[in-house]
Each structure stands twice: as C-alpha cells, then as structure tokens.
C-alpha cells in the first residue's frame, strides 16, 4: 500500500511538470502581445518597454518559465491585467462559488444516478430498466447550455419560480443562494447522474451474479436485504470513487453553465479572461483546476484501494 502510494505520488511530479509547461505556454498561445495588452491605450514605446522589463517579457521564454514557476510555488500567480487584482485573490473569491455549484451538482447526481442505476439493474429488462436507460441517454446527450436555456424559459420566464441569472452568496441569504444555484446545479448534475447511473447499473449487474449474492439468497435472506446489505455495498465502492473524479469534470462543465446563468464563478472567470487576453488569470485558473483534478484522481485511487481489501496486498 505504502509503496503504491509512493509510486503514485512520484508519478505526479512529471505530470505536474508537464501541466506547468502546458499552462505556461498558454500565455504564448493566446493571441496578442501581452505587453501591448497591459499598456492598454498607451502606445508609447518607452512605456511598453518598461512593461516588458517589469514583467520580464524581454527575457528568454525558459527564463520567464522559471520565474513563473518560482512565483507559483510561493503562491503568487501574478496580477490580472483587467481587474488589477492579484490572481490568487480572484481565485479565492471565485472558487467557492463554483465549488458550491459543483457540490450541489454532485449531490443531485448521486441522489438521481445511484437509485436509478440500482433500480435499473434489479429490474433488468422491465420498463423501469428501459426508463432508467433512456434517462441516462438523455443525460449524456443533452448539451448543458441548451438545457440551461430551456430551464430558464420554463422556471424563470413561464412559471416565474426561480431567478434567471445572478448569484447570491450562501453567507448572505441561504434561501436566495439556493434559488440562484439550483437550476445551474441541476444542469451540471444531469450529465453526471447519467454517467453514475450507467456505472451503478453495470456494477450492480456484475455483483448480483456473484457467488456471495447467490449464497445470501440461498440462506433465505429477503431480496431487500440481499440488495441493500450485500450487493449495493460492494457495487457502490467504484461508483463513489468515480463520483469524486467527476467533481473535477464539473469544473469544466461550469464554464458554459456559469456563462448562461451569469454566475461569477471559475468558469465565467476563465471565459472572460480568454476574451480579455488576461494571461495571468487564464494560467492561474487552469493550473488550479488541473491541480484539483490531479488531487481528486489521487484521492480516488487511494480510496479505491482502502475500500477494496483485495488490492491492498
């Protein structure tokens, strides 16, 4: 177990190194000259030269990379060109918004996807199974930005139950906060619910055919007890670790959802930054997202081993 953990962590070092190179190169991939963008309306060559020197843009790219990595390791992601605020503060401001959205989405996904998967497996070949499979196909095939628009039309414009856009922080008013995030959370959770349903179904089907479930049935246990105590516990382990991984995927899905519902989170921050050529923000957001994703991956791996005694040896 310890050697696995050590190996897994050592593997992270080159991955993070390549992630940092990829993200740093985004600055050079985005259109436009950073110095000109920073200068704004100012076209004085002296000012532009000063900016180049100040941000080390006049240095060779590898040198710029080393300075950038040094800064990142010290928690300094640079400063936003547009908002004139340290990127670290911007991230600290926006990340909780997206995390609230992602957490609500994952709860919705678990509440819908896992029961649907269990019912589908237990009642294989019945209308319940077909219904759950249709739901899964619907979930993975619906573009979340279209679903968002349709939900706004139904619940905000037609019924007037929920606000169409905007965000109220949880600390300000929890009811208003819930109302402002429930639709985007559902949009985000919908696709994940479908994925979880499919995984739960296939894991349950596999477990229901195993020897120990057959033994439990032979002992005369009730079907309810067989499913809830014997089958479900074993089937859900990989599904729950998968759910942890999907939390990382949600950060990507949040990009369009936040755009549609005008939620000032991580997703909206990166889209605005790309359009404003706000390099430091793009780099910071992508780096934090990638780090969250890698960390969740590691946690999921460890959790999988911890709950599966056969893999511990």
């Amino acid at each position, binding site marked *: 177990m310890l050697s696995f953990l050590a190996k897994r962590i050592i*593997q992270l070092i*080159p*991955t*993070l*190194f*390549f*992630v940092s*190179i*990829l*993200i740093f190169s*985004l600055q050079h*991939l*985005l*259109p436009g000259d950073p110095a000109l963008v920073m200068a704004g309306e100012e076209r004085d060559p002296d000012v532009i030269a000063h900016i180049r020197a100040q941000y080390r843009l006049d240095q060779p790219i590898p040198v710029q990379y080393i300075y950038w990595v040094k800064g990142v390791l010290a928690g300094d992601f640079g400063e936003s060109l547009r908002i004139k605020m340290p990127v670290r503060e911007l991230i600290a401001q926006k990340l909780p918004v997206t995390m609230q959205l992602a957490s609500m989405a994952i709860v919705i996904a678990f509440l819908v996807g896992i029961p649907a998967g269990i019912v589908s497996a237990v009642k294989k070949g019945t209308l319940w199974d077909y219904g759950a499979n249709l739901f899964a*196909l*619907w979930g*993975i*095939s*619906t*573009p979340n*930005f*279209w679903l968002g*628009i*349709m939900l*706004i*039309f139904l619940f905000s*414009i037609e019924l007037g139950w929920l606000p169409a856009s905007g965000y109220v922080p949880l600390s300000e008013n929890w009811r208003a906060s819930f109302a402002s995030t429930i639709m985007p959370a559902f949009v985000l959770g919908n696709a994940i619910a479908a994925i979880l349903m499919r995984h739960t179904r296939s894991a349950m089907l596999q477990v229901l055919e195993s020897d120990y479930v057959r033994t439990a049935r032979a002992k005369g246990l009730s079907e309810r007890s067989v499913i809830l105590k014997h089958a479900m516990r074993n089937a859900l382990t990989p599904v729950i670790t998968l759910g942890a991984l999907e939390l*990382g*995927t949600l*950060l*990507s*899905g949040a*990009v*369009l959802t936040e*755009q*549609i519902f005008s939620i000032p989170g991580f997703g909206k921050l*990166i*889209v605005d930054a*790309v*359009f404003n050529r706000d390099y430091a923000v*793009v780099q910071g*957001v*992508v780096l934090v*997202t*990638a780090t969250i*994703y*890698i960390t969740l*991956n590691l946690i999921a791996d460890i959790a999988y081993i911890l709950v599966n005694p056969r893999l511990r040896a």
Partner: protein
Amino acid sequence: MTDAALTTIRLADGRANELESPARRALRRLLQRKGAVVGLIVIATFIMLALFAPWIVPYDPIATSWTLVRKPPSALHWFGTDELGRDILGRVIYGARASLMAGAISVGIALGVGVPFGLLSGYRGGFIDALISRITDAMLACPFLILAIALAAFLGPSLGNAMIAIGISTTPIFVRLTRGQVMTVKVEDYVEAARAMGNPRWRIALFHILPNIMPALLVQATLSIAAAIIAEAALSFLGLGQQPPAPSWGSMLNAAQRFLTNAPWMALWPGLAIFLVVLSFNLVGDGLRDALDPRQR
C-alpha cells in the same frame, strides 16, 4: 421437406456463420440493436440534409427580412424566424454541415495524432512510453473544454480552428486508449509469432496490432464524435467557432438566449438538433460496443 434436406440447410447455415468475417458479424450484431439502428437512421438523415441542403431549404439561410423578424412557427416558416427575419428551418439544416464536419474532422485529427503516439508508447515502452504518458496525463488534467477554449482563442475564431482545437483536446483520450489496447494485444501469441518470423517493429504495429485494436478505437471514435459536436456547439455559442452570418447550432443558441421571452422557438430547434445528433452517435457507439465486445459472442 425431408429431414435430410433440413439437416443440409442447417449445416450450410452453420458453415455460413463460421465463414462470416468479423466485420460482417459485427455489422449483423449492430443491426440487431434497435437503438443503434434508430441512431444510424437519424445520422444518415442529417448527413443527407447537410449534403443536399441547397436543394432542400425553403429559404436562403442568411437572407434577412425586416418584415419577418421573430415570427413564430407557421405554414410558411415551419420553425419560425430569428431576430433578423431568417428562416430557422433553413439555418438548422445548414447548421448540420458545421456540426457534422466538426465532429468528423476533429475526431479524425485526434485519431491521426493520438493513435500513432499511442502505438509508439504502448509498443516501445521504456522512456518513450513514460514521456508520452506523462504528457497525456498533463493534457487530460486540463479540463477538455477549457483547453479547447484556450486553443480556439489562440488560433482565432473560425470553424476550422475550432475543429483543430477540439481535435487537439481530444487527442490524449486516443493516445491513452491506444496505449492500453496495445499493451494487452502485444503479448498475444500471434504478435509473438509475427515477431519470431522476423517482421520489423513498424510492420508488427501496423499490420498485426492495429487491426486488432480497431474495434475499441471505432467505439471511442463514435462516442468522441458526439462529444466533439457538443464542443463545437459550445465554442460557437461562445463566439469561438462558426462566425456569423454562417449558420451553426451553437451560435443560433447564443442569439436565441437574448430573445427567450419573445421568441423561445429560436432556442428550441437548434438545441433539439444537437440533442438528436448527439443522442444518435451515442446510440450507435453503445451498439458498436455491444456488437464488438468479444464477451457478447
């Protein structure tokens, strides 16, 4: 009919099944799945609509008319008109071109780049494998859409560039899949036999390994086309894909969002089109997976 004659027919049937090629068997199995058949029909319909769009559309999809601004669906304009008085049906049909092309070309790019690297990584192993694997991990750690947005912004907003951006962002999936498949296949007896016969490495990889990993690649390619169509629509929605006035389902949805109160039909049809095409590719992908899965045989 006599028993002897029936036995002869049964024997002939059995022999025909034995002689059936793997591709034909997979096709037969695919066509036995109702969902996959429905998916194939819908995809074929959209392909025909896209190909013959100029002869099918009732009105020019980019012709504006100030007297027809935001008209609801009617006998003249089945899907209604948009904010510039353009016929939505025509724009949805022409939009199929952008979406299907984006799906096919971006996945083509991902296959073209990802499969050779995956083959190299899985077959050679060692340092090259470690290097390619870590780069793949790094790319997979950056959220797909965020990477595609950043690349599309770098390349400049256009449909072609959106396809390249989606293709590059999809590539690591194919590298990882190919590598995994090669690792499984390369220890098979027939690969050992090919090696023992003195075949060069490139020949073993191309002619002995690649054909045997094709089923997995085909399934993933079909599912990736669905994801690429959504990604293209997302980029066009953000203004990074197909540029106006050329029709695209994503950009149509972007425009529709501003007129949701007065003209909800503007959002309904392009979204429904994306949903139908993506659903169909997912159905075909699922069907292919079942048809090509050796455990099903």
